[in-house]
């Protein structure tokens, strides 16, 4: 078996050399490209974290390291011959396509400035979510290839995303299931694979990797070191596209630039070559999906998996948390754990499956408050390319699935007009992410929770308002008990935001009322957190590339910092929400309009 989770010395050596080779050229190229292009900085002082540039550079070095390891693994694989019909790469085909997906995911050249890979926002050590603690603490979304355009949501974990089905509306249940992204806009309608279509999003997202044309992916693949692997898998000649001379300059320019006049396909390809480029982009998504579904990413190797196999005995707190998760906490009504739910605390059900995914593939509006630290609200002016990310400023409201069904601002085209009428019933809903790996952190920062030990700051929910797992559970437990009609940063005197005060929801329509006043004690909240930690992969065998984190853990002193606790974590970074203008007509005025006005 060629796949190993331990890297031999020769591999590290080869990876190191490859990383050096990879990192030297592109950085120089990036600097050259950025020369003379002023940074876009519409942000008030204090919005961007102070270490942003050095942290972005740090992550790029880590990305290059993993890319080097993947190159080494590819070169170490035995030759694979095509056999049979349908043609199959015998023996090593699976690992080859998974490796191709990994190489693509960690390829920084897949951005105009060659400074951003998919994994720049999704490193393994954070459960394939945001890798920069200071970003998770503040602006929550990650800068794109054009600094500093920034997205609007937390990078959603890639782990187990490939298991979501094609988005469907279940007529019997009256519910949407499946898709990828928080708003489910990667439906899988064409590739029949939402995760593959998710992988097609960021490369052409103006605030992420930022190509102006999806064909730029095919163009850059023609010069990729792993081009032979792509052609081995997807066919010789699959990248033979006649790109015009203007292609390089076009693909070096971030999407949304005024010079493109709104065109989504500025590369002038023939109809035949456009079809080829689109096919390549489909293969891009399918290859990345292969990697993300592999045991490299979705590995079912947690303590909980060992527990299900009878090979791990939970601690008393973990077991108590598990029972609360199923019972009083009611968490598994959405984060399905393959078992039933019992308010008595006694699990009387039969295990329904051996690999529960801790999601129901559905969506819900949990009533999360608007997070004024989200960098998206401040990108109201044009950058040097003439692009404006958010002309509505604080008039933007994230309606999630509702906006997608309307093909609305900030989402994608809805491929099924029959779904449009359901938009008012799902306004504010975001995808129920798997609870697996929610607590994953680098080994040197062993927890997500602030306190007496070094920790790795993460951000939870779509807008990163929640900063610790304790807060997350406390929110579900007390959202309605401590509800106040204020916005973040304006909790009344005598209350503490996120402890005894929850600001009003960003979207009050369709709020899920399963939770909000669960009656959990403080200890019970902690026990659920203890259980959530058992869902971190890497217990039964090493989790690949967990060793790549080279940043610093967060450290605070509970004796000196009142916010150095899981309950108040991040409160030192709260800022007062400005007076909110009404929801922009381009969002809340698109028919079918929300069932009740959204302030």
């Amino acid at each position, binding site marked *: 078996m060629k796949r190993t989770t331990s890297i031999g010395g020769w591999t590290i050596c080869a990876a190191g050399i490859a990383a050096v080779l990879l990192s030297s050229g592109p950085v120089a190229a990036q600097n050259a490209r950025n020369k003379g292009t002023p940074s876009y900085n519409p942000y008030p002082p204090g919005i961007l974290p102070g270490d942003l540039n050095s942290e972005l550079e740090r992550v790029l070095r880590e990305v290059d390291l993993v890319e080097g390891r993947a190159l080494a693994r590819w070169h170490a694989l035995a030759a694979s011959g095509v056999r049979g019909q349908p043609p199959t790469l015998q023996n090593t085909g699976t690992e080859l396509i998974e490796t191709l997906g990994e190489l693509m995911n960690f390829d920084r050249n897949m951005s105009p400035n060659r400074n951003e890979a998919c994994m720049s926002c999704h490193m393994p050590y954070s459960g394939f979510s945001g890798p920069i603690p200071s970003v998770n603490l503040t602006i929550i979304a990650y800068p794109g290839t054009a600094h500093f355009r920034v997205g609007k949501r937390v990078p959603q974990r890639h782990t187990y995303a490939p298991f979501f089905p094609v988005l469907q509306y279940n007529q019997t249940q009256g519910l949407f299931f499946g898709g990828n992204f928080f708003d489910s806009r990667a439906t899988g309608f064409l590739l029949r694979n939402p995760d593959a279509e998710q992988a097609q999003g960021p490369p052409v997202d103006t605030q992420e990797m930022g190509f102006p044309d999806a064909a730029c992916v095919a163009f850059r693949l023609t010069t990729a070191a792993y081009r032979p692997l792509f052609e081995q898998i997807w066919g010789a000649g699959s990248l033979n596209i006649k790109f015009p001379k203007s292609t390089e300059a076009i693909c070096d320019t971030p999407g949304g630039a005024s010079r493109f006049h709104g065109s989504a396909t500025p590369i002038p390809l023939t109809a035949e070559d456009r079809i080829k480029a689109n096919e390549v982009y489909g293969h891009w998504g399918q290859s990345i999906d292969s990697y993300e579904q592999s045991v490299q990413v979705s590995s079912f190797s947690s303590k909980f998996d060992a527990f299900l196999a009878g090979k791990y005995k939970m601690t008393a707190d973990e077991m108590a948390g598990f029972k609360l998760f199923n019972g009083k906490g*009611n968490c598994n009504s959405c984060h399905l754990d393959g078992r039933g739910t019992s308010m008595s605390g006694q699990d009387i059900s039969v295990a329904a499956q051996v690999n529960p995914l801790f999601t129901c593939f559905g969506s819900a509006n949990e009533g999360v408050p608007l997070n004024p630290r989200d960098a998206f609200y401040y990108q109201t002016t044009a950058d040097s390319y003439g692009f404006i990310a958010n002309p509505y400023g604080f008039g933007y409201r994230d309606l999630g699935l509702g906006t997608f069904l309307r093909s609305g601002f900030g989402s994608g085209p809805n491929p099924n007009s029959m779904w449009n009428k359901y938009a008012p019933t799902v306004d504010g809903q975001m995808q129920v992410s798997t609870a697996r790996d929610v607590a994953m952190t680098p080994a040197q920062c062993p927890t997500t929770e602030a306190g007496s030990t070094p920790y790795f700051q993460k951000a939870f929910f779509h807008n990163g308002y929640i900063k610790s797992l304790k807060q997350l559970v406390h929110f579900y437990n007390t959202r309605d008990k401590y509800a106040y009609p204020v916005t973040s940063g304006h909790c009344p005197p005598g209350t503490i935001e996120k402890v005894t005060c929850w600001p009003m929801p960003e979207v009050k329509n369709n709020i899920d009322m399963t939770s909000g*006043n669960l009656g959990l004690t403080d200890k019970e909240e902690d026990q659920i957190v203890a259980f959530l930690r058992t869902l971190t992969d890497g217990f039964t065998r090493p989790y690949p590339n967990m060793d790549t984190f080279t940043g610093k853990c967060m450290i605070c002193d509970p004796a000196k910092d009142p916010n150095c606790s899981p309950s108040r974590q991040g409160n030192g970074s709260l800022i007062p929400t400005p007076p909110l203008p009404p929801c922009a007509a381009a969002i809340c005025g698109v028919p079918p309009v929300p069932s009740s006005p959204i302030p």
Partner: protein
Amino acid sequence: MNTLQFKVAIGITIIGLLSSNPMRAQVSPTTPKAPSGRIIQGPGIETSKPFLTIIRWTTDNPGGSPEHYGVVHYGGDPKNLREIAKSPIRLNPDHASTVFRVRLDNLKPGTTYYYTVGSMEANGADDGTTSAVQKFTTSSEARTP
């Protein structure tokens, strides 16, 4: 079994697990509809604030679709409950009872409201559990802007 064989065995096991169809077991099931439902606790006022009122009650598990709605018909005239509020909850198939909670936003302060509660499946099918008319009076405290 040497290390390589062990890794192969583990790999095959994992691939087997992954290649099974997890979707069928993963999606919440639609459970058989309960033959008759009844309210076993409430309804009552869980939260009464100038900007938010939450009405809560508990029923036998009604069965049916995994998403349900608590529905409150309310108004100032007990014979004419013209307003409707509904809030979604997730049903637990193996749960003996189900808690419904419904939000009523921005009611008038110092006002007496009459209401009845009920519930339905996501497709609108009624659960057959309707309460008698109840009443409550909102706080006279001015709303916080």
